[in-house]
């Protein structure tokens, strides 16, 4: 492809990227003497004329957009069965790369990039174009810090393609909206959801829903409650925390209803990181849980209001059995807070922008040692000291379930009454289900054991009538057993069928019927029988010789050939 001249003006210079559907080249436009990016549809899709038409239509629609935060499309063309799109050439990195390089981004940087993406989306949505695949890999950031959204319309075409394609293994689902995962109606709030996920990743350095398989990720988008960014990075400004949560509400109706609406809030929190973002009016347990810990700078936040919320929350707790661990910890904190009594007043009096409740010059309490302690015990200790116990994270760990594995404050540190101690709790060892390994060749089974996060235990061999030599006969633990990751799985490998030998019996003088019975008894069988005529009537039917001598060893199941007499009058 390199060196090809398309449309008599675009000379392909070098390959700069490849996706599932197309290859991207850097090219020189000889007419306008500038660099462009040329996206060429892969050949296998060019044969589907319906698909090519959709590809062109979408590209043409996207070409009508002109915005500084969108990778602009200049031209759409085809020649000699090569279908291509000519785009703005952006000299920069993908946002994914920037996040990876920096672990996570600062809040001003996050807000800055989010404003640019939202501006690009606003322009597209006004033109009735939904992106459908907003992810950090699709956002290019120039050296000057200008963010540009690429690939408008492509996701829609890709979707139409996969319906007709006979099958496809699912790609990444980390930025999928719940309605996309469900196959439901998609509108501009879908892009807002994905932008919210991208912001979450910028702020915390990780995506909110992760799992071994893309399908599990998709299901989490639909079902799992999100861990607020603030729970992971405790000093995320409150306004930003809430803005992200609002963007990634599971129900589209609760999100920002347009990119413009989101932009307004983004600009507000850019000026004041703690601007209070209003969440949707729709009843929402989650926001109720959060409300009491929010330190508001608004003056009308009275004690009464706080008390009401606490009472609501207590009721909520009694009525609902489905409370996730983190929410539970928060609720506990609130309940404790209401016992402490002064908490609300302390919050109210603070004008500080930090959400930490710290009363200065009052550091009289030493933080107790919590690491390695069971969480219930630790919580009691902490609360008895007048401190607050918050579970801010949890994860798989070698320590037993419920053990404290980390804390934001070291043992012995002096703190004031009411200080929050944020701890991580172990979920115990990660457990996975053991899969069926029987009949798989040893090497394949070993690969599967390792891929599932287990270790190969004892390997022994045994004979098997059923399982091919070199394949797994049995395993321990058995198929379907929940088993901790890193645990050893023992396998038994087949040596093929066992060969048993028997001694050949003496058949001479026996009749063929008698010989058949004797052989069967020994696990042998009668082979060919040859007749020898005799004139001696009393020898009739008797065996005179056998092809394997008596007392020789033969494999079980072997056939023994015999020769026997048959009386013939002519010879007598």
């Amino acid at each position, binding site marked *: 492809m390199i060196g090809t001249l398309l449309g008599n003006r675009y000379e392909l210079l070098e390959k700069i990227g490849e996706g599932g559907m197309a290859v991207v080249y850097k090219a020189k436009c000889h007419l306008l003497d500038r660099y462009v990016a040329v996206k060429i549809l892969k*050949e*296998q899709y060019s*044969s*589907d004329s*319906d698909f090519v038409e959709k590809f062109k239509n979408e590209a043409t629609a996207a070409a009508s957009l002109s915005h500084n935060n969108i990778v602009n499309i200049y031209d759409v063309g085809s020649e000699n069965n090569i279908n291509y799109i000519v785009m703005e050439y952006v000299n920069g990195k993908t946002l994914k790369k920037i996040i990876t390089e920096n672990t996570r981004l600062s809040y001003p940087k996050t807000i800055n990039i989010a404003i640019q993406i939202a501006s690009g989306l606003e322009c597209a949505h006004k033109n009735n174009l939904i992106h459908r695949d907003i992810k950090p890999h699709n956002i290019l950031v120039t050296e000057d810090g200008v963010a540009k959204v690429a690939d408008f319309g492509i996701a829609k075409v890709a*979707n139409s393609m*996969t*319906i*007709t*394609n*006979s*099958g*496809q*293994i*699912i790609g990444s689902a980390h930025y999928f909206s719940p309605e996309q*995962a*469900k*196959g*439901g109606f998609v509108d501009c709030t879908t892009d807002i959801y994905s932008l919210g996920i991208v912001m979450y990743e910028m702020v915390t350095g990780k995506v909110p829903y992760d799992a071994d*398989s893309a*399908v599990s990720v*998709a*299901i989490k988008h*639909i*079902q799992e409650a999100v861990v607020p960014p603030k729970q992971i990075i405790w000093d995320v400004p409150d306004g930003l925390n809430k803005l992200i949560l609002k963007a990634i509400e599971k129900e589209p109706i609760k999100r920002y209803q347009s990119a413009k609406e989101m932009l307004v809030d983004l600009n507000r929190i850019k000026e004041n990181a703690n601007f209070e973002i209003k969440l949707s009016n729709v009843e929402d347990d989650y926001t109720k849980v959060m409300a009491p810990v929010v330190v508001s700078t608004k003056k009308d936040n009275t004690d009464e209001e706080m008390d009401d919320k606490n009472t609501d929350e207590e009721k909520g707790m009694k009525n609902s059995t489905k409370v996730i661990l983190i929410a539970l910890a928060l609720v506990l904190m609130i309940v404790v807070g209401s016992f402490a009594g002064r908490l609300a007043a302390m919050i109210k009096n603070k004008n500080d922008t930090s959400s930490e409740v710290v009363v200065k010059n009052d550091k009289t309490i030493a933080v107790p040692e919590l690491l390695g302690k069971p969480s219930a015990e630790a919580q009691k200790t902490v609360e008895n000291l007048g401190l607050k116990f918050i579970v801010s994270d949890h994860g798989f760990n070698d320590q037993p379930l419920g053990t404290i594995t980390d804390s934001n404050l070291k043992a012995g540190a002096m703190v004031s009454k009411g200080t929050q101690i944020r701890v991580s709790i172990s979920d115990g060892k990660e457990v996975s289900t053991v*899969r*069926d390994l029987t*009949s*798989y*060749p040893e*090497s*394949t*089974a070993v*690969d*599967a054991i390792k*891929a599932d996060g287990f270790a190969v235990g004892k390997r022994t061999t045994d004979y098997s*009538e*059923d*399982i*091919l030599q070199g*394949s797994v006969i049995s395993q321990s633990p058995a198929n379907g057993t929940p088993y901790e990751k890193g645990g050893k799985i023992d396998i038994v490998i087949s040596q093929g069928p066992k060969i048993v030998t028997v001694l050949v019996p003496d058949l001479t003088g026996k009749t063929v019927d008698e010989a058949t019975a004797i052989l069967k008894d020994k696990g042998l069988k009668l082979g060919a029988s040859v007749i020898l005529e005799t004139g001696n009537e009393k020898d009739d039917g008797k065996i005179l010789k056998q092809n394997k001598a008596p007392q020789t060893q033969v494999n079980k199941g072997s056939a023994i050939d015999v020769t026997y007499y048959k009386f013939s009058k002519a010879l007598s």
Partner: protein
Amino acid sequence: MVGILSDIGNVRSKNEDAAEFYEDGEMGIYIIADGMGGYNSGEIASTMAVKEVLSYLKSNINSGKPEVIIKEAIINSNLNIYKASLANTEQSGMGTTITACIKINGELVVGHVGDSSCLVLNSLGVSKLTKDHSLVQQLVDSGSITEDEALTHPKKNIITRALGTSDFVEIDLYKESMVGIKKIILCTDGLTNFVSNDEIYDIIICNNNEETSRKLIQLGKEKGSRDNLSVIVFEGEGI
């Protein structure tokens, strides 16, 4: 008689499905596969799978339990397709579904990977024996979407297991007594996505196996299937 038909469908430029069968007296082997991915190599994967599994079953079916032999056959073919996909860049990423059936000694044994289907006709009607390894099926299983939502899900074609995409493939095995099973139908998703079990019942009950396969594919195409469509219809043991 066996009805067997594979059709390119309304719009595709290639048929990536493969279907074959073999009968010897009362014993029968029936296999269907739907290829995908790679650089136009879906049909290579599906053809390899069907031919290899058929030949393995033919030569080994009498040497052990059918469910063990069918599993061996699929494991073996998976490795071969996977190796071919690594050895040849044009075939990189290719894969295929497979649904292989053996009818032997009064039993129906099925080895299954992907979203092709084995359906049976008994006195209760037509029902699906196999379970798809697909995104949509997992969403249904997890309670995220309803069966009705699944029918119109745009990502119906995304499968979660395939032959040839890694060295290990998990295989579902089914073993059913043939008693009460009148007919067995194997088909690819180009058919099942567009034709319901009730529609299959109406056709299969009034036609012989060859007619049934022809009419099923015709109906699938009329109802707007854009994929390749394949079907095998064969006799059970009667009701």
